């Protein structure tokens, strides 16, 4: 048996994975009855449905043909996702200036055409704009500088 529709196969695996996590973590929720539903009723219903859909996708992938999955560009994805999370870590203790600088430089670096001078200028421009618009003009409660 050969898997021919790879995109379908991996989608099915992904959906089954989510369903498995949902079923596993919903095991403690009270089900109740249809007339008096507990917190576990609807989620379990959905999770089982999702698992069935995922399984169908997997089963179908040996029959149908499909395109191969194109290469995953892991590095840009990882750097940008990490930059976003880092922004969340830095924003409260270190304020907008430092966290925006880190975010912009990291995101710019993730692209193929990184130029340091240009990225620094872009970061400076974004910081000036954000402080001006978000903090001063709109009065959003954001720290500008480190508070520690």
């Amino acid at each position, binding site marked *: 048996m050969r898997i021919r529709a790879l995109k379908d196969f991996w989608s099915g695996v992904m959906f089954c994975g989510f369903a498995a996590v949902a079923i596993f973590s919903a095991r403690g929720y009270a089900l109740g009855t249809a007339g008096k539903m507990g*917190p576990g009723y609807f989620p379990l219903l959905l999770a089982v449905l999702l698992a069935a859909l995922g399984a169908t996708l997997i089963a179908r992938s040996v029959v149908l043909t499909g395109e191969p999955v194109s290469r995953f560009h892991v590095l*840009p994805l990882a750097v940008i996702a990490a930059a*976003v*999370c880092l922004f*969340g870590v830095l924003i409260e203790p270190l304020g907008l200036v430092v966290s925006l600088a880190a975010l912009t430089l990291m995101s710019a670096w993730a692209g193929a055409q990184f130029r340091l001078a240009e990225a620094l200028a872009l970061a400076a421009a974004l910081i000036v704009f954000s402080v001006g618009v978000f903090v001063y003009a*709109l009065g959003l409660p954001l720290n500008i500088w480190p508070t520690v």
Partner: protein
Amino acid sequence: MDVISNLGLGFAVALTIQNIAYCFIGVLLGTIIGVLPGIGPVTTVAMLLPISFTLQPESALILLAGIYYGAQYGGSTTAILVNIPGEASSVVTTIDGHQMARQGRAGPALGIAALGSFFAGCAATLLIALAAPPLATIALQFGPAEYFSLMVCGLIAAVVLARGSLLKAIAMVVLGLLLGLVGTDVNSGARRFNFGMTGLADGIEFVALSMAIYGIAEIVYNLEKQQTASIVAGAVGRVWPSVSDLKRCAGSILRGTALGAILGVLPGGGALLASFAAYTLEKKVATPPRQFGYGDIRGVAAPESANNAGAQTSFIPMLTLGIPGNPTMAMLIGALMIHGIAPGPRVMTDRPGLFWGLIASMWLGNLMLVVLNLPMIGVWVRLLRVPYRLLYPAIIAFCCVGAYTINNKPFDLFVMGFFAIFGYVALKLDCEPAPLILGFVLGPMMEENLRRALLISRGDPMVFLQEPISLAFLVAAAALLIVIAAPAVRLKRAEVLNE
């Protein structure tokens, strides 16, 4: 006349200096992001949600709505001049629009796109004003069973009209529904799917989720593609189409508007589907000689009218039923809820100023857009020269600041990081994100209505089949599924959506 007095009230709201200014900012931003490839209305509306906190709800909605329909105008500029769609809904405009630009007819192409959009915008706004009140009156009588079945029908329709694999789209809906249930269950107070994280007690932040998928994941996906943009050099020339062009296009604009207006109301519809369908229809029915693919001006007029009509009428289900037809509408529902307004049929009766003010502002906004797009076309052409490597870090930065300021919660950034990865994987596997977003918004509402309906019927699921309106929705949903599964229709659908 009721409509006229209501519209009078609407214009009284829309024509305050403050709201004219917000409408202008909205359509201006919409045009900008429409012109720029790689950033769409969903991300922009999400970025502006925290700002709209500080506004009156009327102004907030006028501003955010302007972004959506403004983007339809801007998208055509990029499509015609660069052969890259500025928005997904202007993909088909590239076919004939860019050919026209190569033949030195960029001006008339841009002109007919703007004029067609303007006509479609005005006609569709009128349709909202006429169709929304009776629809809301009907919707007021809906009980939980009707609402549940309506949502099922809406989600199925959204899936059927989405591009790509039907099965994957349904799975994305179900996954979205599940993600929508994360957080504290309103009925029992039980915390669901929080994995021991207090940050998930209030559920997954919608803004963070949608910016992660439509903003960040899209950017990473775009970074892989080497874009070789070549702007058609030289002067754009006279933008006003000649009389013979206008005569040639009149029928196309009318057909595009009508088709777009109908498709916009359907869940999953809106601007994207409308433009594809209108182009396909035009290729079949336009009077010969047809030169589609080689710079036929009707190939610009029809889809550009249709996408604007569809963008406008997709407000109808959002305003009357509180049910979003596409991710941008889901975002507007979020904006209403931030202001403590429960979306649904009561908005029109409880807050007529908000409802009619929004409609009146659309007329105003469409007028501003024609002015913005025709005489100022040179400005937008210059904007296209901003390279993507400068643009995308800025988008990421604004997404992050926006996601944080919604709740001042650093945890939301971790949510965004996680779903950025998920969104990228989903894009790679051809799983369309729109059904997931719709499911996410409808998840809690569906559970609530299912629970209430079955509580009233004492657990008898037959209640969904016994109420006539509910039955009608379910039959419609089943019919859609059966029809789409039929091989002949399946091929046709693939043809229409992929052309």
